[in-house]
């Protein structure tokens, strides 16, 4: 099947092609300005915050901002800034983790005058944020994720994240008590520590309520694959699982499929309660508005990361209101609510530690020895590469 390109008549076409291309490009904008008069834009010195002045904050999302999930949670957090009169926020969605995000960050700084940039996806950090941070030492870069390391990364970079696995623990309690078959399902994107921590917390919470519960995990391979997520949800339901939760960018498909299969669901990132009026139990949601407002106030007061006025690492859980739980759905029993609230109170006052020994993984190996406790901030949890006992599935 040829393409019908006729080489004989195309000789004339070729010169025409080059000409037309050249003229197309230049006609696209008179090029007189390009080479004359425009000195290279100053790369340092733009965007230093001064106390009390209007602060421009730039937000970058890796996916669409109304995805009912991860990106939407960040967008809602940014919208929470609209109450603050001195903040101007700009946002760009669907920016892939390539040079595009570098370009976007540069544009926000040079064209919009942003003094603080919030790239919200993990993959933006290395090399993109690090490169830009070196080019613009007066702009603050706040990355969502736990990757900042003192002494290694530039001083104008900071990290923030939430211990959402606390909320998953409580969601697990509710799931464990509501499930009739004692089988839970978890649809996850990739076996990275953040995700594994959620799976483990969910399972530990469920098992604290019902020690015989198991969680079956399916990895779809990527953050947003609706067809695979639907397949996974159906396969799990076929296996007799009656509570589904997930860690993917947009839980919409999983929750809707669970509702269609008439099983329960637990949400993530944002509230998907409206999608599953019968089966939605609760969900682990972000509350980024707290974080962003705090940053905005610090920036307004003229504080920066470089001078130490703003801490480099900000983390929080339920206590600091970085996260919240969705409202309980109609299927949640009073007993489940009581137990969940009790656990929540213990997490907020610090008396409950999720990861304490002795803890075995699902191959029987001891991963946390008896007597040892790993608190939320413990760096060891960031390197998690195991699935706790009670989880059916493999990490690699």
């Amino acid at each position, binding site marked *: 099947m040829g393409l019908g390109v006729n080489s004989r008549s195309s000789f004339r076409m070729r010169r025409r092609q080059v000409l037309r291309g050249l003229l197309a490009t230049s006609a696209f904008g008179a090029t007189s300005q390009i080479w004359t008069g425009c*000195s290279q834009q100053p790369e340092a010195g733009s965007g230093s915050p001064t106390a009390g002045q209007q602060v421009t904050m730039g937000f970058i999302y890796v996916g669409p901002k109304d995805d009912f999930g991860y990106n939407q949670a960040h967008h809602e957090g940014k919208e929470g800034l609209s109450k603050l009169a001195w903040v101007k926020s700009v946002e760009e*969605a669907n920016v892939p983790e390539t040079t595009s995000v570098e370009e976007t960050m540069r544009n926000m700084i040079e064209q919009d005058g942003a003094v603080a940039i919030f790239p919200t996806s993990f993959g933006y950090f290395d090399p993109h944020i690090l490169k830009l941070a070196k080019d613009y030492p007066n702009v603050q870069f706040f990355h969502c994720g736990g990757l900042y390391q003192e002494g290694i990364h530039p001083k104008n970079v900071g990290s923030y994240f939430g211990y959402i696995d606390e909320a998953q623990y409580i969601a697990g309690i509710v799931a464990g008590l509501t499930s009739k078959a004692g089988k839970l399902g978890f649809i996850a994107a990739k076996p990275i520590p953040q995700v594994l921590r959620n799976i483990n917390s969910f399972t530990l919470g469920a098992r604290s309520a019902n020690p015989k519960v198991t969680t079956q995990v399916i990895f779809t391979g990527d953050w947003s694959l609706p067809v695979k997520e639907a397949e996974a949800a159906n396969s799990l339901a076929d296996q007799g699982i009656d509570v589904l939760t997930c860690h993917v960018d947009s839980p919409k498909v999983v929750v809707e499929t669970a509702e269609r299969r008439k099983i329960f669901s637990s949400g993530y990132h944002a509230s998907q309660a409206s999608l599953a009026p019968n089966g939605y139990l609760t969900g682990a949601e972000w509350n980024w508005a707290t974080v962003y407002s705090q940053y905005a106030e610090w920036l307004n007061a003229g504080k920066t990361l470089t001078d130490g006025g703003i801490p480099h690492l900000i983390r929080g859980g339920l206590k600091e209101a970085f996260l919240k739980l969705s409202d309980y759905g109609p299927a949640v029993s009073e007993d489940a609510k009581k137990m969940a609230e009790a656990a929540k109170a213990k997490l907020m006052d610090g008396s409950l530690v999720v990861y304490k020994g002795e803890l075995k993984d699902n191959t029987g190996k001891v991963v946390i020895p008896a007597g040892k406790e790993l608190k939320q901030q413990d760096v060891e949890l960031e390197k998690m590469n195991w699935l706790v006992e009670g989880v059916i599935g493999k990490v690699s």
Partner: protein
Amino acid sequence: MLNLNHWRSKLEAVVIPVAALLFALILFGIFCFFVLLDPKNIGQSIAQVFQVYGSIYKAAFGSWFSLQNTLIRAAPLMLSALCTALPARLGLGIIGNEGAIVVGGLAAIATGLTLGNITPLVSQVAMALAALAAGGVWIGAVGALRHYRGVNETISSLLLNYIAIALLNQLVNGPMKDPSSLNKPSTYPLPEAVMLGSIPGTRVHYGLIYGLLACAIAYFLIQHTTFGFAARTAGGNVKAARIAGLPVGKLTILICALAGSCAGLAGMVEVAAVHGRANESLNANYGYSGILVAFIARHNPLAAAVVAILLGGILASGGILQRNYQLPDATILVFQGLVFLVVLYSESLYGRFRLFRDRPAPPPVAPLATAPPSLSA
């Protein structure tokens, strides 16, 4: 080149593309008008449309800053476009650019990591060669399947795309994974010193030079060598070429390998100039955009370079539409589609307007039998 004969057709080659672009801009402006429309204030809505135009220009070509953004985006597109443009001369429809980029990137990172911290130039040359080889083998296989088994090259290259991406994910998440790259599985990073730098005085990496060189070499190869001539002939009529004794099979595989190696080089540039490691970001849709560039440029390598810059400019202006006008990111896709549809339509306008048809040369005047009266007599 300042030959002013046939000035009409030369003018045509200028006016028609310019008119096409202007028309596409007008269509897009109408689209934006309705989207941004504020029924209470029509005048302001119209003014906003012109502001949108201004922003697009500013973000694409309007300053040195913007031009660099455009060039950075154009570099991988040029190399990727060659992966479709070259085999098209032979009459093959290959869309495996994405797969070739991915395997090229994998080969480059594997080579770079194995060689480690040695002289940057040696490492870069080795990575480039590895990428060229990997990409060449990948698409060369498509050509071989076509020649020896008659497998349709469009399908096999499309399937190989998906297979390459699966391979990338499997390797990056498995054997090649850097254990410390916890949250975004990647390979180990290249040593800082061996990474491709930027062209001095700019932010643009050397990938742009590779792209421009590759386009120039491809053009020369196709237009001015016997190999290229053989390829074009075979592309025009396979049977005639066979009868003439041209080694069609060898030509097929060789051209496909060359095409694949160009795309593989794009993968190497992504790894060595941008990311420093291989991970899922290698699969960034440059392949697909490259196909579009190749077709718009009618598979001419030089035109492909120019069209790549145009597409880079359009893509670079997407961000400003989102941030300043709250237009959704899909707007730039609509604009892209409009520009290319109108430009494609304009292809059919050549030769239609009488204004642009060259007038026939006046018949030669026969010398008079008798000498004319001499004026100086």
